[in-house]
């Protein structure tokens, strides 16, 4: 197939599907219903390291996890979630929350939306662990 047909078809196809999905409201990130949902999301990644404490942020978009092996975070990946321990993390305040920089090529930057009180609380918690 000539590239002069293949390339426009692929580009228009991809862009069209992405725009359509967005217009259908399918870009909404996951929200954790409650602490139990955040706990389950953590256990889904680390079944051998159960949370001792789960601190869900007020808009339910992420949770700080405390375990005997150290702190971690669960956050949305699109409609789903993932989780990482926070060992080695660099945490910085950012507009509307904090940014966590991890020494992890597959999760280099985690942007969390927190209100001012939460941001302070998380920063102090995370400074103890990271």
């Amino acid at each position: 197939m000539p590239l002069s047909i293949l390339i426009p078809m692929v580009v228009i196809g991809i862009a069209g599907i992405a725009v359509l999905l967005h217009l259908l409201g399918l870009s909404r990130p996951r929200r954790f219903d409650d602490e139990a949902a955040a706990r389950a999301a953590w256990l889904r990644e680390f079944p051998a390291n159960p949370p001792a404490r789960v601190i869900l942020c007020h808009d339910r978009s992420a949770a700080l996890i405390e375990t005997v092996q150290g702190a971690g975070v669960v956050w949305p990946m699109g409609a789903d979630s993932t989780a990482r321990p926070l060992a080695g993390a660099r945490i910085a305040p950012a507009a509307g929350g904090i940014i966590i920089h991890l020494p992890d090529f597959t999760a280099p930057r985690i942007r969390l939306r927190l209100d001012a009180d939460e941001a302070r609380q998380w920063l102090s918690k995370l400074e103890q662990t990271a």
Partner: protein
Amino acid sequence: MTDQITYPDVVNFAVPLFIAAILIELAWIVTKKRGGRYETRDALTSLIMGAGNVASGIVLGFVAWGFFMALWAITPLDLGTAWWVVVLCFVLDDLRYYWVHRFGHRIRWVWASHVNHHSSQHYNLTTALRQTWTGTFTFMMVVRAPLILLGFHPAMVLFVGGLNLIYQFWIHTEAIGRMPRWFEWLMNTPSHHRVHHGRNARYLDANYAGVFIIWDRLFGTFVPEQDDEKVDYGLVHNLGTFNPLRVAFHEWLAIFRDMAQPGLTLRQRLAYAVAPPGWSHDGSRQMTPEIKAAHLARHPEDAGTPGFD
């Protein structure tokens, strides 16, 4: 003479079909409110990975093609182009696919390329297109060498390989439950391939088939989808990024970092490349058997059930 035979570049010609099928699946899910899930960034990443796969084929395809034509030049055998030769080639190439795919999950060097196909937490038709950019570097083209040495023309081998990929497109869906019994026995199906995409301990390293599921039945890697255990799609350690470059290269980087650690023996460095994913020199990570054992320790009632026998 037969050096000039050409077959259509089937995967490229299937692109409009892929787009149409995705739109139909999406319409089905949106109207019926069941049969799968779509998310914008996940789908976009999958589609970009698919486009990059085609591009890498255009850029790097000459490597495998040069290798195949060199084999074709030395083999004294030529099976010709009769229809039954094409059919035989398709079946044998599917056996080739089974082993390449099994290596893809059991040798970290090959997994580094294949991992991205499993990196979505979704399972829909776009997931089928989430294909590798780095297949050339796995050297898995050598597994096709016997076919060419047996007298199947390289163009035919690539043609049936393309058909194989196209077959696998439609099975990446939750919109289809089960096919008729005889079909589920013989062919790879949405149900069987859902299992293959599962990160559940039960479903790890199962159902490597491309077109015919019988290879898994034959070689002991078949696990049927369980009605009481929904497949959890994705990787044992799910990615925290949608960036296609990170998706494409992360495991290669991880291999090189592991190999470059100070204080390892040469044997350990090599094992980081060729041992199964999850191998580590100090036992700090888990491979499939350990993941299954840890699951059974938490859920002893699952012992002896499919995937745990």
